[in-house]
């Protein structure tokens, strides 16, 4: 009897250990907004949606008083949160709130600095140490150096001059500078970002700051410094971690800068890193590449089950995103026979559906030709007699035999 209890206690202990190892989710997140020279009414709900979409965060939006309002009423309890996202560029907060925020970060709180939030509080020393770099607000050489890449080298430039500018809005190439940082690991070396303001000439204390990615501000493409300007940064402040994205200018509906899958995914990864110092999120299939911008107009990643169904309505000229999603999941399931068979079954359901398009079936037959098993063969055999599918069916059957 006694032994049984001991075993139970040991098991309970082990369970406790395993439970505590489980991936933490539901990080309470505070998005601060309410004043901004940018469209915060659009951006803040989208930031909430982007973060909550991951399942890692539970976000709420808190608005400051409007411009000129009584800031003494703005006293968030930062201790309730693992992450604070700043979508704010406006009046100074009250001293107590400032101090509470500095304490929060110093003690290990995570922060995301989003786009024009790096314009904010030019006179607040600690805030500028958290953002690393900032712009506008009469920033100049007293604010700190310019930081940029030139000829592949990181440059810290103390020369005199304004802080903050951007040329004409445009698509631009983002270049990874730290391939092994948790946030950028597995991302393309270069990717095209949706039309956005290319923040340039940012300057600030730049202490304990790492530049993860830059974009070349090409003067030939609508004004630019001809420097590789920082776009993604991390800053260590006390025990706190700050992720700073200079991208994401909000238009109605978010616009291409916020809908850009590159913006969304780096924000999600950066936010997780700010909380835990790690990134557990896999890089999704639709991260953009140098070949082109990828937008997520609904701010969501399509699931593989949805993708397979959607392939059933594919026609030439339509997006092939669903196929790319399927191929990505086939790769991810490499070696997992049960997982692959589950995909195969869903693919066969589409092959057998009278509603599914011929072009969609062709795409599936190509994939099944190598990853399919005996399960899909009867369905493919049937398609051998369908005139418009017989080539693809023969292609698949020759490989599967």
């Amino acid at each position: 009897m006694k032994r049984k209890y001991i075993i139970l206690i040991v098991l309970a202990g082990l369970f406790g250990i395993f439970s505590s190892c489980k991936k933490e989710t539901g990080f309470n997140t505070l998005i601060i907004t309410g004043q901004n020279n940018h469209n915060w009414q659009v951006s803040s709900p989208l930031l909430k949606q982007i973060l909550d979409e991951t399942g890692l965060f539970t976000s709420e939006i808190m608005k400051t008083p409007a411009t000129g309002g009584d800031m003494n009423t703005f006293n968030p309890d930062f201790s309730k949160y693992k992450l604070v996202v700043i979508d704010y560029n406006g009046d100074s907060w009250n001293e107590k709130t400032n101090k509470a925020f500095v304490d929060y970060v110093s003690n290990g709180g995570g922060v995301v600095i989003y786009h024009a939030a790096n314009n904010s509080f030019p006179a607040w020393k600690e805030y500028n140490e958290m953002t690393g770099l900032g712009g506008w607000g009469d920033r100049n050489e007293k604010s700190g150096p310019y930081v940029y890449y030139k000829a592949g080298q990181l440059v810290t430039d103390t020369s005199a001059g304004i802080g903050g500018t951007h040329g004409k809005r445009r698509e631009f190439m983002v270049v990874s500078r730290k391939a092994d940082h948790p946030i950028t690991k597995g991302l393309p070396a270069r990717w095209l970002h949706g039309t956005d303001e290319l923040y340039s000439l940012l300057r600030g204390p730049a202490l304990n700051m790492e530049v993860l990615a830059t974009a070349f501000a090409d003067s030939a493409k609508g004004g630019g410094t001809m420097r590789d300007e920082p776009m993604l940064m991390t800053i260590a402040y006390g025990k706190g971690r700050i992720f700073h994205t200079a991208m994401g200018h909000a238009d109605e509906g978010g616009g291409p800068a916020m809908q850009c899958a590159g913006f969304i995914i780096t924000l999600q990864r950066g936010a997780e890193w700010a909380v835990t110092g790690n990134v557990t999120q896999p890089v999704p299939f639709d991260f953009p590449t140098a070949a082109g911008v990828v937008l997520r107009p609904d701010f969501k990643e399509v699931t593989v089950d949805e993708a397979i169904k959607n392939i059933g309505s594919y026609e030439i000229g339509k997006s092939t995103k669903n196929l790319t999603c399927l191929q990505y999941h086939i790769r991810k399931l490499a070696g997992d026979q049960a997982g692959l068979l589950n995909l195969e079954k869903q693919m066969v359901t589409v092959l057998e559906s009278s509603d599914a398009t011929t072009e969609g079936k062709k795409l599936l037959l190509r994939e099944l030709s190598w990853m399919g098993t005996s399960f899909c063969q009867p369905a493919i055999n049937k398609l051998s007699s369908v005139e418009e599918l017989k080539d693809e069916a023969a292609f698949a059957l020759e490989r599967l035999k």
Partner: protein
Amino acid sequence: MTKNSSRREFVKRSAALVAGSIVLPQIIPSSVLGMGGRTAPSDRLVMGAIGTGSQGMSNMRDFLDLKDAVRFVAVCDVDSVHLAGAKRTVDGANKSNDCRTYGDFREFLAKEKLDAVSIALPDHWHGIIYSEAANRKMNVYGEKPICRTINDGKTIVKAVKDNNIIWQTGSWQRSEANFHRGAELAVNGRVGKIKYIEVGLPDGGNNIGTPPVMDVPPQLNWEMWLGPALKVPYRGVSHWDWRWILDYSGGQLTDWAGHHIDIANWGAGLEHTGPSEISGSGIYPAEGLYNVPVEYDFLCKYANGIEMRVANAARLKHGMGTVWQGDLGWIHVDRGNRISASDPAILNEVIGENEIHLYKSENHWQNFVDCVRSGKPAIAPVEVAYRAISVGLLGEIAMTTGQTIKWDPDKEEIIGNPAASKLLSRPYRKPWTLPTV
């Protein structure tokens, strides 16, 4: 050049070329003397061209630039505008109007009696047309990569060997001084024992989105352009840009494998073998007609312990080109006559008489002409080309499957992975079949 004087001149010229460009104990090309079972070719090689798009025409001009070395007599293309342009070029060079034109390579190969044929086609056609040309005993200058699949490659290698033809791959970097020098230093141990090789290739591609079905341009025989590939409607992409679509190419990776991977193999003594394990990942465009990997990064392990990383250049310290890393240092070579080393003194090293002297050619097209005449192997032979592209194709399979691929470089088989093994070939659309040798 009169017929009587030309033979003497030809022998003299060939001897001079051989002395100047090939470091082999050889004085007179055997073909000139009618040895080795070969008939002496006429004064100028009689050549034809299949595929007269940008690369085909570029090769033709390189041959014509050799001055009196070759005479083109026939051209073949599925695009009548390309064909007419090629005929104009040939007729202009020949100062005549008798260049024969073909829209179907089968008719071309059946009717033409040529010393050699220059072939530059989309990769999905290589298996059939390279093998058929070899079966017709034509010597071939063929563009890299020599095959779209490993299975195609095996067939081509066998056809070339069994028919005992001269083969030159369009891997022209071998005939450039810096690549030769770098490879020769590496293979002679000037960076010590080679442990690690890095190959940087372009990333890429652009993006044309998802174009609709379009009318086939009247000059293009689309059905013949597709040939053994699955039938798809024309969507505005054929010449040149076929390299961004997986049905016809593996993208920049396979396009460039025949260059920097080929050079890597040359300098590391890996020309006649392949890796035993391949793993890595690609980054694919999220959507669009162009579906080749935009970025790629994979590692090949060889039985002798060498590791070769192949990646798009932006991921690598040295960027584009080939780096041989030995236990004593490294050498990097790239286009633009670039060669550098961990210690510049390495680059001044002299290769001793008893060391390995790599085949030397100063002009890739001249080397082919010389070899057709002499019967000697050209600088970029078929098996070597097959081994270079195999690395790219195995990398492609590792990326497609998401798995580590075990490869037996002797049996040329994937070990223990039936799904990945299916990717070693692409079934041909009826009525096309890979020729038997």
